[in-house]
């Protein structure tokens, strides 16, 4: 999943599609769903006083536009934030450049659009 070439193969639905990465998501979502179901029976987390449940529930323009922008950038290079940060450790300048732009983009959105309420 850290390899941009593989991610682009996964997203290349109309070309040489490599669907194997679907298994990464299915396994991860299944395990987290089980943990989440377990947490519904717990009063509090093991080492903290409350579960910080996400408070936003509305499907708005902000969610769709943000996700669309992210999707375009993700497809262009094949890097989403997690693997991008991890790949900085390879020391390749291409990744450092991408992550620097990602951090600047985060701040631009923070100072123009601001945090969601």
């Amino acid at each position, binding site marked *: 999943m*850290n*390899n*941009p*070439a593989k991610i*682009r193969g996964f*997203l*290349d*639905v*109309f070309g040489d599609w490599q669907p*194997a990465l*679907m298994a990464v*998501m299915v*396994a*991860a*979502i299944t*395990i*987290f*769903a089980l943990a*989440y179901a377990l*947490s519904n029976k717990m009063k509090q*987390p*093991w*080492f*903290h006083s*409350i*579960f*910080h449940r*996400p408070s936003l529930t509305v*499907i708005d323009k902000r*969610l769709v*536009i*943000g*996700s*669309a*922008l*992210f*999707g*375009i950038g*993700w*497809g*262009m290079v094949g*890097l*989403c*934030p997690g693997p991008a*940060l*991890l*790949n900085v450790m*390879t020391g390749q300048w291409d*990744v450092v*450049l*991408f992550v620097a*732009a*990602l*951090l*600047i*983009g*985060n701040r631009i*959105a*923070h100072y123009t*659009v601001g945090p969601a309420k």
Partner: protein
Amino acid sequence: MMNELAGGALIGIAAALLWLGIGRIGGISGVIANIFLINQGHRNWSLYFFAGLLASYPLYVLLAGTPEMQITANKAILVAAGLLVGMGTYIGNGCTSGHGVCGNGRLSLRSMVATCTFMAFGVLAVFIMNLLNL
């Protein structure tokens, strides 16, 4: 297929531990945004999580050797895409981890909409990039 399932399971376990341990959603774009917050409570766990993510790389190299990593995009595209990912995940409040893994695991309608949207636009972007031979 076994490698993909095992990798996904590790991601799921990581998110599960963070949720059951301290009640936080393991979203990388959230962690990035939190790191910019000075003097706020949730900055600390984000820094530890970030340190753990970076530390997993040498651990992987030690156990399994250097992983393959090929970037084909040129520098201008890297910068444009990085800006889009940084802005988009901030505005949409999540990426493949926060929405894709945790949100869908919680059966959150918002995260399902977000996931369908970034998948669709990701597919579109790859289609156009391939068309332009980039």
